[in-house]
């Protein structure tokens, strides 16, 4: 092996209890020895794999932090190379200082995903595992982390294997029937094939759908807070985000631009945009903000329409209701702490979900979260469900599903079974590619397993 040694912070770049700096490559241990002095005096280069030592990290003779260094020796490490993991005290500054010390001692900064790439190239991970790990790295909430783990543990593979087994059985039957015309092979009917293929197609559809759900878990829902000025959008945003970000004043029209924030609510992530209050305005700068807000509404995946409970519905409110009509939306009746003047019945026609809350008093957040989950059917979207997680997997699944549909259509118009067989085998090939298996003589093997053929 002749790889340069790379290093990076492998925990999240944020304040945390402990941060880990991972060093990987031929020189990982020697480089770490230059900056790490163990309390016992043992050098890392004298330590076996899977052992650790307590000590201090130094740079230019100056002590930076107390660390635990764990040594992994190739090939028994995540990347398959020599690896040292330095666990230091979490602060952003300390972590950066330790990493800099490692880089100064001779390591190169790791590119994004480079540890995983090396693990993959060294045969430690198969393609799907590597992709799942990439997704763990980038996943932003606990649900998507769980779902990503599921794939790694082979739950997707298991589900795909189930579908593949059905297709293999049919392909083997068709092959036995074609290759052994004079043997006693049970007839196979068009109806029987259509029924099995329809079931397989539906299961593939479910998996494809789970991808879209998966994206919701992983990337979050693009959510727009819409409402007239001063209905309390910014207060609501701040409540959800947990800290002040928008300027909150009681002067109508304060938020002139779009403020974006990702907030994690239980298992779901909302990418919140707090838009300028929509209203007809003479203020030039504010009107730019209003235009932006309207544009944002058109692309939103979820619109939270905020209304002021203490006021009657105005024309501006009605415009907002109309603009939210095409997207999944929730009506939020805010300021329930004030006397109510708003006619809720008018909203009931337009919105399936209406949540009453007082953002100022932090009331109603739980109800809002439950409403979002109902709109997105997130309650069905158990993260225990097996999910496909990236475009490559999605397109392979779609290809397989399309082959299955092609076979069904061909059966419906009375195409000969040789063509049907080719479509089914193509679907199998895509599924094998998805789980990273080699398409071998599976169909042929199945023929001999299932049928007594031969002279």
């Amino acid at each position, binding site marked *: *092996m*002749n*790889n340069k040694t790379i290093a990076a912070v492998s925990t999240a770049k944020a304040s945390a209890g402990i941060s880990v700096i991972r060093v990987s490559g031929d020189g990982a241990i020697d480089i770490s020895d230059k900056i790490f002095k163990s309390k016992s005096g043992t050098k890392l280069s004298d330590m076996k794999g899977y052992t650790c030592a307590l000590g201090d990290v130094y740079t230019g003779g100056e002590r930076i932090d107390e660390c635990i260094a764990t040594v992994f020796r190739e090939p028994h490490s995540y990347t398959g190379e020599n690896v040292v993991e330095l666990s230091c005290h979490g602060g952003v500054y300390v972590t950066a200082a330790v990493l800099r010390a490692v880089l100064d001692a001779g390591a190169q900064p790791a590119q994004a995903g480079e540890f995983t790439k090396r693990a*993959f*190239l*060294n*045969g430690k991970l*198969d*393609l799907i595992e590597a992709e799942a790990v990439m997704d763990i790295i980038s996943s932003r909430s606990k649900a998507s982390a769980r779902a990503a783990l599921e794939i790694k543990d082979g739950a997707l593979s298991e589900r795909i294997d189930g579908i593949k087994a059905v297709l293999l059985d049919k392909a083997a039957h068709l*092959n036995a*029937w*074609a*290759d*052994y*015309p*004079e*043997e*006693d092979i049970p007839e196979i009917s068009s109806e029987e094939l259509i029924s099995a293929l329809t079931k397989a197609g539906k299961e593939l559809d479910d998996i494809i759908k789970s991808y879209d759900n998966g994206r919701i878990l992983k990337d979050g829902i693009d959510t727009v807070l819409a409402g007239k000025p001063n209905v309390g959008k910014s207060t609501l945003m701040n409540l959800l985000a947990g800290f002040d970000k928008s300027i909150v004043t009681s002067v109508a029209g304060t938020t002139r631009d779009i403020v974006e924030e990702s907030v994690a609510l239980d298992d779901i992530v909302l990418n919140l945009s707090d838009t300028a209050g929509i209203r007809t305005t003479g203020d030039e700068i504010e009107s730019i903000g209003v235009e932006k807000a309207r544009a944002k509404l058109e692309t939103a995946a979820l619109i939270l329409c905020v209304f002021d409970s203490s006021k009657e519905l105005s024309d501006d409110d009605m415009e907002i209701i109309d603009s939210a009509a095409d997207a999944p939306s929730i009506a939020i009746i805010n300021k329930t702490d004030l006397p109510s003047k708003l006619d809720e019945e008018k909203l009931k026609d337009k919105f399936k979900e209406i949540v009453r809350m007082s953002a100022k008093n932090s009331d109603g957040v739980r109800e809002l979260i439950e409403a979002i989950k109902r709109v997105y059917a997130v309650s069905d979207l158990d993260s225990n469900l097996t999910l496909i997680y990236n475009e490559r997997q999605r397109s392979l699944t779609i290809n397989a599903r399309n082959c299955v549909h092609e076979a069904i259509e061909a059966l419906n*118009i*009375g*195409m*000969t*079974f*040789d*063509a049907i067989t*080719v479509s089914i*085998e193509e679907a199998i*090939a895509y599924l094998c*590619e998805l789980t*990273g*298996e*080699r398409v*071998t*003589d599976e*169909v*042929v093997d199945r*023929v*001999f397993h299932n049928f*007594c*053929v*031969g*002279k």
Partner: protein
Amino acid sequence: MSTYKAGHYDIAVIGAGHAGIEAALAAARLGCKTAVFTINMDAVGNCPCNPSIGGTAKGHLVREIDALGGEMGRTADECTLQSRMLNRGKGPAVHSLRAQIDRRRYSTVMKHKLELQEGLDLRQAEITDIERDESGMWLLTTRMLGVFSAKAVIIATGTYLGGRIFVGEVSYESGPDGIFPSAFLGDSLRKLGVKTRRFKTGTPARVKRSSIDFSELEVQEGDEPTVPFSYDTLTPVENKIVCHVSWTNEDTKQIILDNIHRSPLYSGMIEGVGPRYCPSLEDKIVRFADKKRHQLFIEPCGEDTEEMYLQGMSSSLPEEVQTEFYHTIKGLEHAMIMRPAYAIEYDCIDPTSMLATLEFKDFPGLYGAGQFNGSSGYEEAAAQGLVAGINAALKIRGREPLILDRASSYIGTLIDDLITKGANEPYRMMTGRSEYRLILRQDNADERLTPIGYKLGLISDERYSRFTLKQEQIKAERKRVAETVIAPSKELSEILVSRETSDVTTGIRLIDLLKRPELSYEALAPVDKSRPDLDRAVFEQVEISVKYEGYIKKQLAAVENMRKLETKRLPDDIDYMNVTGLRLEAQEKLNKIKPLNIGQASRISGVSPADISVLMIYLMKQNKRGE
């Protein structure tokens, strides 16, 4: 005892079975001075396994052999007793031609063709020793101590090499049909460094026709009209015989189970690996225990013999057990066994030690074909023999080798499977082995391979001009079909309604009618007034190309992708142990097989997609370094 110099040839072929015949004829026809050696002059082109040629996928092979300029198809047509197109109605990709043949006549005709071939000497001799002199010339010693020298040697020893027959507890060294085995060549090859292993196969009993009661058996007739194997056969072959069908029963099963311990397969006497698709009856009964009955076909072995072949009833049980269980079968109650069933074990090699030309990687000028390479079947053998013979001749004549890829033919698929995946059991061709089967049809073998055969010099000018005429007619007819508009009429409506497809009220293009699965060329004849008078085969090509257009296009796109990977060449001097990132299993397999390109590497079992990614990255790195 001292040897003597017996002669020199460009190419020497060991064995005159189906592989040896094609190899020898092709080599001689390509201008090489060739000898073909047979242990017994009366066993040339013998068919000891069964009296038929072709069948599913095998029929494709015979058509391809013929299209490329081989002999099997023509001779099979001359000796046909009954011809059937299997799988009619299951789609053109799986239509397969099979002929019952007169096995004695087949042997006689083939022998005579070898005798008449210019530049070819057919000689009776057992080759006992093979070695290479310092100049690279191959030296073959015969049992009679003659030493022949040759620039290239093609080994096509079938089941003769180290052959051993098993019938129950009885076992002895023998080739098929009681002919002498090749008893010494195996040791000589092993001394040379060729690794061998044991495979086994078997054949059922032959019983006397007059001892069979046909009265209650189902009759199986040939198809009319018949289709020949060869594009050279211009007069239709004739159906001369019928076959019969019968079934085993619970009594048959019981007798076999009671005596299973006496089968050499189950007692452990046979170490060779047998094919799953050609199981003995005892295998079928043990492996598929819940099946109540198994089918058998009773087929005549020839016109001037009373021997009848019992297809499906292979066995290696003792002779008295065979007699007993055959007698439980309807029609065979009093059957007189003329030749008992037997299993035969023989030496063969691991075909992953060969190149796509069927030349050994480690022994330049040494080729193998047929069962010796780990395949099974007359047709598979002939296909390899043809390719080995052609390549040995091309090499000697300093021409580019002939490598048929998977998308070109079943022949290419067969060879690629053998040299890339190896064979854990005798390899039989099946349509399921080809991922491109909608374009590798038996009906277009000429389109795929005849231009290649012509360029090689194995197809006559006369035949080639017939071929090009047919191709032109297909093209013109396809154009006519696309341009012709059929006006709505009562006649057309009647055809459409009777075939249960939707009626038309406006004019419709002929091509759009032909696309419908319910309609055929034949059905549309009454309304297709401008149809020219052409051969049925021309219409067939047009009809298939129209009906399966979408599939054919898709497969052609897949072929293009495959061929792209095939162009990513892997240098043969890579030591895969030094390619970091490959898994150990992949490193070992790649080092063993030394694939020519990424495409072939991706088909090796044990090489994962991740390994292929690593190889691509490696290749990219190498190419950059080379720039």
